[in-house]
């Protein structure tokens, strides 16, 4: 079988488009008219809207200050009898210390490379992460992969605990994507996850069940930092 190439594949498109080769100059695509598509204004009470919408998705919201954050998290971990967990944050030292002090076993997710590291993530009771942004419109968390952020920690663990700073809350999905649209392909994070609630399904007779493949519980600690 002769295989399609980029050229032969594109040629298949040129025929129905009615041109001999790929068009070089095209009109600008339609603008995203914000008077239609924007659902939350930039100057709205983003904190209140985010907490409200995030809670509606089934995530548990805790409003804390920088002073009460560690204490609130360890209390919540004890409540759920957590034994092992990992911390996945841009600056994880203080949190790791606080959780270890409270008697929980903190696993270093970076210590084991490749497959072994992934396997370890499957055995954890919980994962604590910060986020890269949050969206008031939908109550979503935005979590990107990078050197300090494992994909598994907001996905493989049965319980995802996310820390959102109040200043990270953006009004609308539009704002987040406008913000990211100047990056080139290499500059884009390899993985951006927009997370909106615990894992859900309604495949069996439409009955809503939380916790299928992803985390069954998501706790969000919103920190007043302004």
């Amino acid at each position, binding site marked *: 079988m002769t295989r399609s190439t980029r050229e032969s594949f594109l040629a298949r498109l040129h025929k129905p488009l009615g041109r001999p080769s*790929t068009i070089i100059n095209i009109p600008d695509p339609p603008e995203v008219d914000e008077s239609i598509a924007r659902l939350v204004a930039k100057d709205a009470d983003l904190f209140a809207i985010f907490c409200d919408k995030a809670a509606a998705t089934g995530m548990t919201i805790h409003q804390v200050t920088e002073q009460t954050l560690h204490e609130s998290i360890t209390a919540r971990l004890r409540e759920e009898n957590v034994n092992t967990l990992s911390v996945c944050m841009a600056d994880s030292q203080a949190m790791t210390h606080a959780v270890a002090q409270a008697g929980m076993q903190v696993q270093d997710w970076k210590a084991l490379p490749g497959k072994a590291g992934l396997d370890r993530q499957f055995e954890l009771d919980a994962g604590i992460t910060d986020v890269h942004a949050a969206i008031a419109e939908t109550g979503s968390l935005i979590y990107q992969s990078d050197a300090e952020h494992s994909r598994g920690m907001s996905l493989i663990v049965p319980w995802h605990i996310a820390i959102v700073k109040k200043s990270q809350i953006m009004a609308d999905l539009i704002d987040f994507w406008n913000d990211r649209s100047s990056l080139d392909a290499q500059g884009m994070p390899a993985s951006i996850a927009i997370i909106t609630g615990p894992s859900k399904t309604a495949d069996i007779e439409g009955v809503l069940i939380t916790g299928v493949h992803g985390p069954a519980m998501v706790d969000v600690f919103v920190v007043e930092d302004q």
Partner: protein
Amino acid sequence: MSNPRKLSQETETVSGESVELTMAGHDILFPKLPYDMKQRAKDATHNDQLQEFVNSATRMRDQLRINHCNDVFGDNYDKMRELAGSIKQHTLDHLDYYIEQFIDNATAAGTVVHYAADDKEANAICLEIAKLHSAKLVVKSKSMVTEETNLVHDLEAVGVETIETDLGEYILQLDNDAPSHLVTPMIHKNRASVGRAFARELGVEYTDDPKELTQIARRVLRDKYRQADIGISGGNFMIADSGSTVICTNEGNGRLCTSVPPVHVAFIGIEKMIPSRKHLPVFLKLLSRSAIGSPITVYNHIMTGPKRSHEADGPQEQHIILIDNGRTEVLKPETREMLRCIRCGACLNSCPVYRKVGGHSYGSVYPGPIGAILTPVFKGLANYKDLPYASSLCGACYEACPVKINIPKYLIKLRGDLIGGKHDKFIDRIFFKMWAMSLKKAWTYRMAGKFAGVFLRLRAGKSIKNKDPYLNRGWVKKVPGPAAGWTEKRDLVTPPTKDFRSWWDEHQKQKGGK
């Protein structure tokens, strides 16, 4: 094409009764051509699960969509659909430009882009990747295009165990069944059949509790993600200006399939393109709202290349297979609009015909109103003559469509193409000729009405002369010819001896006489 998992046509349930499987698994979507829809549609109307559950579930989701979209978009709902439709149309009009841009950007990000003219080539590419990695186990998330290519069959045929991980698709795979809805694939099945399939195939104790069943599936599949050599996904969107692929799921299986195994292969139809990241929110805002009336899917995963060298986890290789498989046929100017579809399933939920006949009646991968127009273009109109007629042309699908595909317009166009200006049955030609004649002048229209009235009254065994025209009406149980299908399921009320126009004329005369 038979599924190697199941050989017998009969299968034993836990209670010992046997259930007949009329057709095996994936073959349901690939019937003998030319396809005759009538038998399956008829069976569906006698299927209680389908009539009760599919009907109520689709109505509920349709209502959720309407309420939710009106709530958030208000008067802008229509403009929002217009905006999304115009972005998709622009992209399709310049699809060569955007595909080239996508290839350049994805390649720069480290993705390997492949090109598949048809289903065979797409699967062959995937099989080569599997061979290269000596893959034994593949986990895959929900993807309609892999249904088109029958990928699972081809992988299993060469000994690669391939597991569907979307809960609904997993159940269908275990029970040797096929999806019947774009978003809720096992809408035609009940919990008892899931319980029986789990007991039979997984050796667990029978339960029909959805929560317990879900937990069983979770336990089984969690190990599979860890062991899998390759993760396969579809793609909801491709973004040209960054070379990114987007998948939207609620369960998390899509994100697991694209994050845990060392190799990720995405099967994506070329029509899934959007120009830029700035356009993505428009579609994310509409997709889940149109599908199930929720603001957004739980997980939207935007992937740009494989894992970077400094990252600890993520796939080391990312392959994207760009798939034509008939799409360039649809890309012709006269049908291009059909490719705007973002597979939300809103047209299925809103369709009074889909609700009654279910997805399998359409005899193809894409059911419902969108399937009724896409399938004949994909697979030849002569092979799917019934599909353009599987609609009442009520327009509910057009109103529900988030990208404003004028489905009724295309149904009518396909009907026109089918008859080529001429009906094939003599009786139909006479019938439509007379109909056309009767509609041309007021008096002929009236005459036809009178004839029909007399005919139906005689059919009902009623006198055509009756002192009180509105009493002693009764029902017409059966009508021959084109209306036979209508009276098969319900009776027709017998017309009165005096029609409204006669009454009106007399009434006006009386008034004038006073």
